[in-house]
């Protein structure tokens, strides 16, 4: 197998995890026009959630995603109530700053508990070897889990009443309210789902790499890139964009030093933002 091929498969696997993280950001942004700056902190909490659960119950780490998703929903409701509910009708700057404030508080508490030293989840699934290259079991499991969660969300949004209500509020909150949809409940639920997605992506990352309480920040940045590439409010589009971003990274790295990747990614991010504010795959109108 040639190097670039292997590198692209690695990129694809990790890209699915970026995509899952970005779905959370994208859903919240699309439904309530809030850029959730607690995103990175909740990713980090997902990592530590997995660490704590796995230390207590050393079963298959991927089974532990279920309690993490549930806890993520509760955490999401809490964060919604603290930082978003009161400012939902104020200009965007208010929610930007209030979620950022909560982000600082989570990071602060996390630092006090876990310091900023690296942690590991020591769980390994056997990998697959093709020629000189080996793909680790954890990468494959994490990518599969990300896709399954993304599909479940897609089904929820398009096949259930509640999901339809969320989409209705995203399209036009006032019209939805006139139709008898309780927008506060829908907003809170959408926020909770977004946070839960972030936490579960953090949990998946924790099975791949060592992490600190500050690690969420770099995944938050990646989520911004993915969300902007995908266009707003399109959760499944975010997953696809995440995978594409991973593939791009994989295709580029054989030719340049890995340390240039952030420049390329974020340069691309700014250019796409300026040229295609609705995202490359975005709808023509908002």
């Amino acid at each position, binding site marked *: 197998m040639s190097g670039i091929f292997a590198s692209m498969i690695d990129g694809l696997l990790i890209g699915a995890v970026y995509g899952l993280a970005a779905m959370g950001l994208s859903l919240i942004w699309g439904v309530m026009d809030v850029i959730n700056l607690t995103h990175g902190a909740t990713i980090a909490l997902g990592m530590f959630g997995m660490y704590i659960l796995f230390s207590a119950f050393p079963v298959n780490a991927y089974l532990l995603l279920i309690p993490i998703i549930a806890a993520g929903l509760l955490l999401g409701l809490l964060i919604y109530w603290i930082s978003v509910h009161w400012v939902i009708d104020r200009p965007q700057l208010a929610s930007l700053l*209030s979620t950022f404030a909560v982000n*600082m508080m989570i990071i602060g508490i996390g630092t006090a508990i876990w310091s900023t030293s690296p942690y590991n989840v020591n769980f390994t699934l056997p990998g697959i070897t093709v020629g000189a290259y080996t793909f680790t079991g954890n990468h494959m499991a994490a990518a599969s889990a990300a896709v399954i969660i993304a599909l479940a969300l897609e089904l929820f949004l398009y096949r259930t009443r509640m999901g339809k209500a969320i989409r209705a509020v995203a399209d036009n909150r006032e019209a939805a309210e006139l139709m008898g949809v309780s927008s506060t409940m829908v907003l809170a639920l959408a926020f909770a789902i977004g946070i839960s997605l972030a936490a579960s992506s953090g949990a998946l990352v924790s099975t791949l790499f060592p992490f600190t309480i500050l690690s969420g920040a770099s995944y938050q*940045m990646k989520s*911004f890139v993915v969300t902007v590439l995908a266009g707003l409010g399109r959760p499944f589009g975010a997953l696809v964009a995440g995978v594409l971003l991973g593939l791009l990274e994989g295709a580029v790295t054989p030719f340049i030093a890995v340390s*240039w990747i*952030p*420049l390329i990614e974020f340069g691309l991010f700014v250019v796409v*933002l300026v040229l295609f504010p609705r995202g490359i795959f975005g709808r023509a109108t908002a």
Partner: protein
Amino acid sequence: MILRHPVLYIILAFAAIMVWLPLHGNNVSLREDLILVAIAVILASNLNLMIGYTGYVNFGHIVFYGLGGYIGLYLAAEKGWNLVLAALLAGVGVSLFALVLGLGILRLRGAYFALATIGILVAVQSFVANFDPWGRSTGLYVSFDAYEKLGGARHALWVTYFLVIAVMALSMILSLGIKMSKFGLGLFAIREDEGAAVVLGVNTTVYKAIIYSVSAFLPAVAGALMFYKNGMIDPSIAFEFMLSLEGIVMLMLGGKGTVIGAALGGGLYEKLRSYLLTSPKLSNFHLVIAGGLLLVVVLFAPGGLIGWLYKAVPRSRKVLE
């Protein structure tokens, strides 16, 4: 006009006190505290030009400070330039960079602009971390003997302190001057309703690009002075995202859109932070407290300390800008 404004004299008195306090009794340790306060005031005041005056949130404001630091340190330490000249050139260079960049990204509004500024911060940091002449990740160092030109290290620290205080006073005077000018009115129009401003004949694109560029100048000069004083610079210190965000906290705390508020917020926040950081019990909680403070301000007192003062003492609105 500006010469008759009471705030100008408040600014000058503040700067004079900042100079006098550590000089009196040669208190080096106080000087080290106050220089950080001055830097905070500089960052908050210039950020105010974007957030407070124009209504555009710049999350990557620190990129100006860091780039200024790199250019200044490179010219002063590696090329042997005079420090003041190097700092000024750093300011000019970074302002031009901001002007070009601004013409591109200021087409974006609201949150999209805010996100683009984060992208720029990461992209610039990544570029510098790969840039050989600036030492990549390991950064640049000042030779110990470079300070000889300013009369030895101990003397050089005083010189840079006075220069930083001067930049601080200039930042506040700049804020006041812009606020009282026609240009400032144009900015406020953009903040209140950009669409209406266009209709009223404000060339919003040019206004925004100019203020973005102006808000880059003094932070870049301050960066050059501060990193020269510290003797080194590397990408993780120069482009610290956290500091960029803390700048926003300072501004909100003091009261965005006001000259005194920005300075007050900067000064108070830095004092609070240095107290929390060195207190053994609270050092872990400085982020929690800062975050809580910001949340309270955003939710309950969007006008910050100055907004609160305006409400409590309505007459203060006439005096304090």
